[in-house]
């Protein structure tokens, strides 16, 4: 007998047993499948519907923005919104009609909500109204039995306690646009807001925080059954600014009613203490999307409330530019302070006449008087001697014609022309007449009010290349860190020249005959020096000259001159630099200088470093001098 044959037979027998066992077990599986998927299918289908886990992102509270004394100027408050969950209503239309009798709800809005409800799955809530008042909330709660499917939800919205006053510094937050929905999963949340402008935009990532998550088991009605797990969100970091909200508020109120802008800088450290642009807007309006009407109004307003005029308004500096021309000439050595020019009220260059603002002329002018009385003829002469390229060089050193690099988004560069620029872009050579016009800050030159403040600060602080900033802290790996103490390099301008210019600016305000003599600070211990500027926005024709130049008051608003004023104070130990531009305000001495004076007084009074008034009372005000 073949043993292998025997083995094979035994094997086959047992293999059949094993095979049968396998068949039996497979049958058991099939029976189980039948039981679960056919017999009990309905029960499990119900269970499946009740079985929904929502992974929800827990949005972090946005970091607050504080002023230099720790006062919150952007914070978060709770807001109530009413939502509807269509699954839980008997009839959405009916519920909405009932709701409309409790809170105002137009037919138009109802249609929008109905459309939205239809698009969504039954258990996803649709927002009916946001920012409900307490009264509305309680009215809805009381009527809850008649409003199946209506739920009140609590959220957080951005709150700006000073509303319009600091809007252009803070910027605003708004819903995330589709193009921005990249990276951070938070951005996909319908209620999430990100910074779209100003500080809110510059420091958005630090203010935003990190999302937490929560796993929620919900049933078929969208009702939360229980929270399965939760990781808390990391709140956004608080950010302290150099802004003094008290001063900011004062400045904004002072500008109210005009199309104007004012900047207050610490002349040494570059801290932005106040920046107001009027008219302004309420940043909270952006939170839930602006109403079309409001938006159209803002866009159509000739006073441009949405534009931050301090950094995005570009103006001819007018006579404010004369310090720059004077410094360029002194540094180049083409004139000395003793240089004199006789002003007859007009100079001829070729066939063109160039007029002084004072029709009769100033007579003999030296540099100090040229600045004090803002004599145009004197500066036509100085400009011609020094040339446009050296003027442009000094303008750039003082911070004009390029973004100064402040940490607020949307800064415009302004413009300073040179001979090369004109040849390269316009294809025609530079004309000497254009140098004359540039000498009084007109023509091609454009500057922003912030640049003018920086220029004034650099003159006031002894020629240091100060760069402005508004955030006192910068985001680091472990939260906010204090901004490192900046040491600004010297611009290399002779101290004697700067001293001379500052003295001349003192004369502008504090001496009889100075163009801003009426805006002198009279309180003991307070003082300021400055320079007026008037930027023409229209061309004065020869005929008009002959007839007599039309007064600003007689022109339509948008044809009037821009009024400018830059100032620093106190005179002897400068601390703040101020720049004011009043659009179409007329002359700088009349429209801008008083504003700057009031701002400077408030700034000096609020200065935390200021000595008590008693100590400085002895210091006499700068004595007047006959010009």
């Amino acid at each position: 007998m073949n043993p292998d044959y025997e083995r094979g037979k035994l094997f086959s027998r047992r293999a059949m047993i094993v095979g049968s066992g396998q068949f039996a077990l497979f049958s058991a599986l099939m029976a189980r499948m039948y039981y679960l998927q056919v017999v009990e299918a309905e029960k499990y289908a119900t269970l499946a519907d009740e079985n929904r886990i929502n992974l929800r992102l827990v949005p972090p509270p946005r970091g607050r923005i504080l002023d230099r004394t720790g006062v919150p100027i952007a914070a978060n408050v709770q807001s109530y919104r009413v939502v509807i969950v269509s699954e839980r209503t008997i009839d959405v239309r009916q519920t909405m009609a009932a709701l409309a009798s409790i809170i105002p709800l137009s037919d138009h809005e109802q249609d929008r909500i109905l459309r939205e409800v239809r698009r969504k799955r039954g258990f996803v809530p649709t927002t009916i109204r946001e920012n409900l008042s307490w009264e509305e909330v309680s009215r809805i709660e009381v009527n809850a039995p008649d409003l199946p499917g209506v739920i009140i939800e609590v959220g957080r919205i951005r709150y700006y306690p000073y509303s319009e006053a600091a809007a252009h510094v803070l910027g605003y937050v708004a819903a995330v646009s589709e193009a921005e929905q990249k990276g951070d999963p938070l951005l996909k949340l319908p209620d999430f807001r990100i910074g779209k402008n100003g500080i809110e935009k510059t420091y958005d990532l630090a203010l935003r925080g990190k999302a937490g998550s929560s796993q929620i088991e919900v049933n078929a009605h969208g009702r939360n059954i229980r929270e399965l797990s939760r990781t808390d969100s990391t709140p956004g970091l608080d950010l302290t600014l150099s802004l003094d909200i008290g001063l900011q508020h004062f400045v904004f109120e002072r500008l109210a009613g005009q199309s104007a802008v004012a900047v207050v800088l610490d002349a040494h450290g570059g801290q932005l203490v106040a920046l107001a642009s009027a008219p302004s807007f309420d940043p909270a309006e952006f939170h839930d999307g602006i109403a079309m009407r409001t938006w159209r109004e803002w866009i159509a307003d000739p006073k441009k409330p949405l534009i931050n005029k301090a950094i995005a308004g570009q103006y001819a500096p007018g006579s404010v530019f004369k310090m720059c021309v004077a410094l360029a000439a002194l540094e180049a050595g083409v004139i000395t302070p003793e240089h004199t020019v006789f002003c007859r009220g007009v100079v001829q260059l070729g066939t063109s006449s160039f007029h002084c603002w004072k029709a009769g002329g100033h007579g003999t002018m030296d540099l100090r008087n040229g600045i004090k009385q803002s004599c145009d003829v004197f500066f036509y002469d100085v400009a011609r001697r020094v040339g446009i390229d050296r003027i442009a060089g000094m303008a750039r050193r003082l911070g004009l014609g390029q973004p100064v690099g402040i940490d607020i988004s949307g800064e415009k560069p302004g413009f300073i022309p040179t001979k090369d620029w004109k040849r390269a872009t316009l294809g025609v050579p530079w004309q000497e007449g254009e140098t004359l016009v540039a000498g009084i800050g007109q023509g091609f030159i454009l500057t922003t009010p912030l640049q003018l403040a920086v220029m004034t600060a650099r003159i006031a602080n002894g020629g240091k290349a100060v760069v402005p900033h508004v955030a006192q802290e910068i985001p680091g790996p472990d939260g906010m860190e204090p901004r490192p103490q900046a040491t600004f390099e010297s611009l290399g301008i002779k101290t004697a020249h700067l001293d001379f210019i500052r003295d001349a600016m003192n004369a502008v305000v504090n001496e009889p005959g100075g163009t801003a003599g009426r805006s002198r600070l009279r309180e003991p211990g307070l003082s300021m020096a400055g320079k007026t500027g008037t930027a023409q926005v229209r061309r004065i024709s020869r005929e008009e000259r002959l007839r007599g130049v039309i007064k600003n008051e007689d022109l339509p608003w948008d044809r009037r001159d821009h009024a400018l004023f830059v100032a620093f104070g106190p005179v002897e130990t400068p601390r703040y630099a101020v720049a004011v531009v009043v659009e179409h305000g007329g002359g700088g001495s009349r429209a801008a200088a008083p504003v700057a004076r009031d701002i400077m007084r408030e700034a000096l009074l609020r200065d935390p470093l200021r000595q008590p008034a008693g100590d400085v009372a002895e210091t006499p005000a700068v004595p007047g001098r006959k010009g």
Partner: protein
Amino acid sequence: MQIARTGPDNISLMAKLARVNWVVVLLLCLTASVGFALLYSAAGGSFEPWAARQITRFVIGLGVLLLVAAIDVRFWLRYAYLIYFVSLLLLGSLEFLGVGAGSQRWIEFAGVRLQPSEIMKVTLVLALARYFHKTAMEDVGKLRYLIAPLLLVAAPAALVLRQPDLGTAVMLLAVSGIVFFLAGVRIWKFVAVGVAGLAAVPVVWSNLHTYQKQRILTFVDPERDPLGAGYHILQSKIALGSGGVAGKGFLQGTQAHLNFLPEQQTDFIFTILAEEFGIVGGLCLLAFYGGLIVYGIAVAVGCRNQFGRILVMGLTVNFFLYVFINMAMVMGLIPVVGVPLPLVSYGGTALLTLMMGFGLIMCVHVHRGIQIGRRDSHDPV
């Protein structure tokens, strides 16, 4: 002694390939394709991160299958122990260089992650087949001849239990038991082991890990902790049951896609099939598996040598156990243990060793004519 041979010992590669059962290869491809579709669905309708990789591995697996099938069956017989010891060594090395979340199941080798316990399932059968091939039938009846094969089984089973991987240990023991049975070990011995096993239950119970105890307790009463250990069973039953007869449609499953079942691409992948394709889909897959198993049994019974018979039947049983344990677990018939659904679950090593196993079955099929004596085939018996 002259032994009649029904076929030539050495056949050409082309002839070997011609003998490969291509219908079975097609069946393997079909089964694996079900897996691709489910992995695509598990990823929310994307080839990344699972389906694309699984397809690549399956193509490699097909190459391995054909290679293994083409190698002479006597090669596998001769090197059976060597292969066994190499994989035992790999399994043992996990103690020192294993990586893996919580338990040590992986080994990193030249950038490739290997799961030695999966390889062991094939190589243990290989070693046992050789042992029983070499052992005379009357010796199989003697107890002392069972010591060596018991050690062959005990060593990997102990290592796998240490990981701890209860599912694989159970599978190794079950496959070995059936191999012993097929080799002709007397029935009463199984009864004796069964009785001893029952007696050992209290001892084993006290040595189980807490989570293993939890799973068994939960199996007995799933509702006792619906958010804890009972969660898996309950959720997978809901997924299955709600699929009904025709299913919710491809990519339309709600339960699987809502992350009720973590790691649904591996052990719980059947829930996606049952939910999206209903009982129809489940039965189809079961039919594919049945076809492959019937093929295995047919090859085993038709084989002329004991090595081939035991090897093929052992591998077939192994394959069957994969299917049964996984499905029974998903359907709540047995406790939750970590056993993948063969050819469908995501996982490289399991897929490759399964393809190697089918390669061996085909190898035996291709070389079915060769008779091998108890002694080495090169020595005349």
